[in-house]
């Protein structure tokens, strides 16, 4: 105890270090746990309520008892899920069709518990008795159903296909509803069909309408609806989903989805009629993936810190033992033996170590609380998982082992050695055996990591092990270097520098200081690099996956209108450009993306890629200009010698066929215009017809059209002197028309001004030669997965109208900003040639070069003004935020804690080392003062003695950090799931790393300078004491 009092500073330092070691160990499980909770909470919150919740749907075909009653549905919920689900919202719906049956629309009747609270009645009242309904405003308008009117319906369903024999009802409209959006509706949209005249919107009705008996068909008494669809929507209670139960919830939900009525009834009719849907399994999977990643990154980071802390603690303990050589000698002299010496030494270091454990544990809890609030917003609940206690225990055991090993040397030394005071070591370049082994092992571990031979704990320690190796070697090299520099300085006559350097080279503190600063700076650099690479990747991936600083989702399905509007807003294509994305029908096929090459290459974001290097010139349009016509009538001369039929059946032989034009009208619709019937038994003369081209059309095909069901025919049609509204139209030569193989048709040149079509339609109604302005094979820039193996080979693509189009790869592209992995980038204008008829699955977007809200708002306003509604606005920052709220990103945020603690540890070690060398330093400085140097000079020498060492060692640490970061990075997950298009960019972030390293070096240099100045100041006082 008196020893503790005597060396209280040392005891305090040991206590602080012990608590830091404990804190580093105990913090990891606390943080991982908090991170688990945050991941689960965020994933749950990010999932739409309708998806996260459980939806049970059933219909009654097979088993009335199981499926018709939502009470039974409630019983199906597995016990394990019940606590996590709120009270279910039951619903019943019945598909109906208006009577009398004609081309009348279908719709559905829906009851949902409490629905009246989730709609606004714009007129009338919410229905409350059997037979009453509320309808949407669109339906009322489009189908002319006023409040108070009645509606006759019959049940209509896939399984009740004959409406004549299905239950019927007379419904009275009591009100017009407007859906109030909210989680209540579980993602259901009630309206939309009526507006497009596609059918009734959902009609709302009380439960009685759907469960009471209704009219049997043909006036035959009463029946019940045959196929009411029962639904029970159980919202998830987010507060009931935790890191502990999510895995179980996910597994139970997964089983339940697979076997809604249990395994025993799998495959029965009844279970086929019940479906359960929820994304709980997906949430569980995402949470598990995130947790797995945290378990890689967090230990990786904490291991570096732990290694540094243990090294520093060990050095301090060894220093403490060394300081007590005298006492150890006395103990041996009094017959205590080496065991007695060991316990004597440990009695001084163990109490602060043991005391440090609870302090460190408390610090870890505090640190975790801070991290929860600052790094993991919104803060997950405070918890104390048992692993924290185990981690603290582990820390204690490691520290006890360190303490035991730290006293070994002194305890084992012969008394004679202990009695001698330690001679000042000379700067030796030669490594000790132990050091050489540590260096070899560290380098081996690092090489194994770089070559990918190790992962796991060894791999995680490897980065710092490398720094340790560098530090140990540096501890030998730096003093020698300082001695050499000192010699040089002496030679030049720089007395102060020489004195300082020579002192530093002799100082044992220098040898300890070097590896610590090296390791600490390496950790700081590694942390900074991981942090920066993580942030940069999130930013770049968000940019690549969003596509542009701002992406507007457009509510229009008219590519021409959109591209015209955008060209009107920005004719030069510098700030906004249209992008059309046409998804393939099947998965695994190529998505066609149409862009305006120049504008797109300027406006889109291309992180990690160079748009200028792409083969844009290959996306040219066909050279043939389109054949445009304007007018309402067409006349022409035709000659058709008798055609041959493939069938001898006279009934199948058509008596006429008609020449036809394939046109794209002003609205963008592709249509076939027959140009008047011509007898098939030989004809020569003029014909005329009307064409829908008052606003202008583009001719894309020329051919023949035969009546439906006609037998195949073979013949030659010669067209000439074609006039549109009496203006002659040159059809061009045969080379402007591309033949087709099936049905077979080709153009050839006849007399000047005449075009001969030779056809063999083999039964198809239409056969066309295609105008050369319509590309046959579209050149595309293709991503690697979409590029065919053989050069020049074609791949299937899609046009905006959903029809197939052959594409060839005209060049590679790393990725299409905002596109999927398998994408072909084509010229948007070449897609426009065929027009757009609203089919297919094309998405229209506008890419903006600016994310400035006012610029976005003004573009949005102008687009809306031009009739193009904007349905969504996306920025890379939104996506980046999502990436940042993941286990991977949160784990990486820990680099700030680790880097900071490494710096702090190093600063503490610096102060301790400088302070423990105080006695020898102040003796030296006192000597210098007596030799006549001024106080200033001595202060300067004191600083010169430590600061260069710190800077040298720090420089080595920087090198070690920059060297080990690329080795560590492949181990670190940056995202929960890898990007489909943006490969992680693991290159060292030199800028941030160097900046942080520089800051760290400045801080350490200042600490070293202040500490040595303080020691220098006290040198006079000490000299007096030594003399006494």
């Amino acid at each position, binding site marked *: 105890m*008196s020893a503790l009092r005597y060396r209280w500073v040392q005891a305090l330092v040991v206590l602080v270090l012990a608590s830091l070691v404990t804190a580093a160990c105990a913090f990891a499980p606390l943080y991982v746990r908090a991170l688990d909770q945050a991941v689960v909470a965020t994933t749950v919150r990010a999932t739409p309520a309708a998806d996260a919740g459980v939806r049970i749907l059933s219909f009654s075909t097979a088993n009335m008892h199981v499926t018709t009653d939502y009470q039974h549905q409630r019983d199906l919920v597995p016990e394990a899920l019940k606590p996590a689900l709120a009270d279910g919202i039951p619903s019943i719906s019945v598909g109906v069709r208006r009577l009398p049956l004609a081309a009348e629309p279908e719709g559905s009747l829906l009851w949902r518990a409490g629905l009246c609270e989730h709609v606004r009645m714009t007129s009338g009242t919410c229905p409350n008795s059997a037979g009453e309904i509320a309808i949407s405003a669109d339906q009322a308008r489009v189908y002319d159903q006023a409040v108070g009117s009645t509606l006759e319906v019959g049940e209509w369903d896939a399984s009740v296909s004959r409406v004549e024999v299905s239950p019927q009802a007379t419904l009275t409209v009591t009100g017009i509803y407007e859906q109030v959006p909210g989680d209540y509706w579980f993602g259901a949209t009630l309206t939309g069909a009526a507006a497009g005249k596609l059918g009734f919107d959902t009609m709302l009705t009380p439960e009685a309408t759907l469960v009471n008996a209704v009219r049997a068909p043909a006036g035959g008494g009463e029946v019940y609806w045959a196929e009411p669809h029962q639904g029970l929507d159980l919202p998830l209670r987010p507060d009931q989903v935790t890191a502990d139960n999510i895995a179980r919830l996910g597994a139970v939900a997964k089983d339940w989805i697979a076997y809604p009525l249990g395994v025993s009834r799998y495959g029965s009719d009844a279970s086929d009629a019940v479906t359960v849907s929820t994304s709980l399994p997906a949430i569980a999977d995402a949470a598990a993936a995130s947790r797995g990643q945290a378990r890689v990154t967090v230990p990786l980071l904490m291991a570096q810190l732990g290694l540094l802390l243990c090294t520093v603690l060990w050095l301090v303990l060894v220093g403490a033992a060394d300081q007590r050589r005298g006492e150890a000698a*006395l103990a041996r002299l009094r017959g205590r033996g080496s065991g007695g010496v060991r316990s004597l030494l440990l009695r001084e270091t163990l109490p602060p170590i043991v005391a440090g454990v609870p302090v460190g544990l408390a610090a870890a809890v505090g640190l975790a609380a801070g991290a929860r609030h600052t790094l993991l917003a919104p803060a997950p609940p405070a918890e104390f998982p048992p692993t924290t206690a185990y981690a603290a225990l582990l820390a204690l055991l490691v520290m006890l082992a360190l303490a035991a090993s730290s006293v070994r040397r002194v305890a084992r030394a012969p008394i004679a050695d202990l009695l001698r005071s330690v001679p000042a070591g000379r700067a030796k370049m030669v490594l000790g055996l132990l050091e050489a082994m540590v260096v070899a092992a560290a380098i081996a571990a690092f090489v194994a990591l770089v070559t990918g031979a190790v992962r796991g704990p060894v791999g995680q320690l490897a980065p710092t092990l490398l720094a340790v190796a560098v530090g140990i070697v540096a501890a030998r090299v730096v003093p020698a270097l300082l001695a050499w520099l000192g010699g040089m300085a002496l030679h030049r006559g720089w007395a102060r520098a020489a004195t300082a350097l020579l002192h530093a080279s002799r100082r044992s503190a220098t040898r300890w200081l070097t590896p610590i600063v090296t390791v600490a700076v390496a950790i700081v650099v590694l942390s900074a690099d991981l942090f920066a690479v993580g942030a940069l990747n999130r930013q770049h991936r968000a940019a690549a996956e969003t596509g542009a600083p701002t992406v507007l989702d457009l509510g229009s399905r008219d590519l021409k209108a959109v591209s015209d509007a955008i060209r009107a807003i920005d004719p030069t294509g510098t700030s906004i450009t249209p992008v059309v994305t046409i998804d393939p029908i099947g998965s695994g096929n190529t998505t066609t993306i149409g862009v305006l090459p120049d504008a797109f290459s300027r406006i889109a974001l291309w992180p990690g890629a160079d748009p200028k290097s792409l083969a844009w010139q290959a996306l040219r349009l066909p050279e043939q200009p389109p054949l445009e016509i304007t007018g309402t009538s067409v006349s022409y001369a035709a000659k058709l010698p008798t055609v041959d039929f493939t069938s001898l059946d006279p009934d199948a032989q058509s008596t006429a066929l008609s020449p036809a034009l394939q046109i794209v009208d002003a609205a963008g619709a592709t249509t076939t215009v027959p140009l008047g019937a011509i007898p098939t038994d030989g004809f020569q003369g003029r014909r005329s017809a009307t064409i829908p081209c008052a606003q202008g059309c583009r001719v894309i095909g020329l051919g023949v059209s035969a009546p439906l069901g006609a037998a195949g025919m073979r013949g030659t049609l010669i067209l000439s002197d074609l006039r549109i509204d009496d203006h002659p139209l040159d059809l061009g030569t045969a080379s402007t028309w591309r033949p087709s193989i099936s049905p077979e048709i080709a153009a050839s040149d006849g007399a000047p001004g005449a075009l001969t079509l030779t056809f063999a339609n083999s039964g198809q109604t239409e056969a066309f030669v295609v105008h050369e302005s319509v590309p046959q094979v579209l050149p595309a820039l293709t991503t690697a997965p979409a590029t065919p193996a053989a050069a020049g080979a074609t791949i299937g693509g899609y046009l905006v109208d959903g029809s197939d189009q052959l594409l060839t790869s005209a060049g590679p592209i790393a990725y299409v900003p905002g596109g999927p992995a398998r994408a072909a980038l084509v010229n948007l204008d070449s897609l426009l040639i065929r027009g757009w008829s609203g089919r297919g699955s094309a998405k229209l977007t506008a890419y903006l070069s600016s994310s400035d809200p006012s610029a976005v708002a003004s573009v949005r306003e102008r687009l809306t003004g031009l009739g193009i509604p904007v349905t969504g606005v996306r920025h890379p920052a939104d996506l980046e935020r999502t990436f940042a709220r993941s286990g991977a990103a949160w784990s990486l945020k820990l680099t700030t804690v680790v880097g900071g603690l490494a710096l702090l540890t190093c600063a503490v070690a610096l102060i301790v080392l400088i302070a423990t060398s105080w006695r020898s330093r102040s003796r030296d400085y006192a000597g210098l003062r007596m030799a006549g140097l001024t106080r200033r000079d001595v202060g300067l020498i004191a600083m010169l003695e430590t600061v260069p060492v710190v800077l040298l060692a720090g420089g080595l640490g920087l090198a070690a950090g920059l060297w080990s970061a690329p080795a560590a990075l492949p181990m670190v997950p940056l995202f929960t799931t890898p990007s489909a298009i943006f490969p992680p960019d693991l290159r060292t972030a030199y800028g941030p790393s160097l900046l942080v390293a520089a800051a760290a070096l400045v801080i350490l240099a200042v600490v070293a300078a202040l500490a040595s100045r303080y020691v220098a100041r006290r040198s006079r006082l000490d000299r007096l004491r030594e003399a006494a």
Partner: protein
Amino acid sequence: MSTATPRPGLGVTTVGLVHIYRSEGSDVAALSGVDITVRPGEVVGLLGPSGSGKSTLLALLAGLFQPSAGKVFVGDRDLAALTESELDRYQAVDGSLMLQGARRNLVPYLTIRGNVDFARQHAAKVGDEVPTTQEVVDLIGAGEIADRPLSELSQGQLQLGALAVALAPGPGIVLADEPTSALDHAARDRILDTLLDVNRRSGATIVIVTHDPDVAARLPRTVTIRDGRIGGEGRLGQEYAVVTADGFLPLPLHVREGLPPGTLVRLERDGENWRLVPEAGGLPGGGDDVIQ
């Protein structure tokens, strides 16, 4: 005064003791054949010039390390044959070494009482009977300084403390390396008195290394070490040369001045005495030296 029965003094016999310090550059022969016998309860001073090997001999007697050759017997123990724990016990209880320089014997942050405790504790554990701390403090008459911090004590008081520590286990032999150097006369006498008093009272054997002729004069027997060998003996200040086991006779320094190396001498018997006669034609003025 002591409740513990005093441990009987331990005799010492060394046979052909050689010690060579091996260090990086060169080997130093600190002792080159020392035969010395100290009877139990005897008080012996070790004299000799600096670097002659006095401290080395003391360390060997204390069992701090093993001699390069030769044997050390203390009491009935052959120090070289002891196991580690036996050696620990010897150092804890029987053989007490007092290092040169008072501070080196004291744990800096303990008082004299604390230091005596520190030394006593282990001895009490392994030894049969050990005086109490108070007894030791009283023995050296250090009651009033026993509880003061060491930093407040004078050099003499510190030396007294170091002596107290050495006496703590009630040892059979006290090996004191220059206990009186750097002390004023009063302090020196006090230390010496205490040592002689302890010897008288408990019968402990005492070996004192000293440079001080005044101290040497008060000791009943002195042994002079020279170049790692026994160079002479003294009895209460009177110097004698000693014939070694193999028949050599090291000449005292002052005699050597008159007889440079290479001088031929004859030994002649003269009744009870022996006469040492340099060969004629030798050095001028060569007188007759008598050896008793």
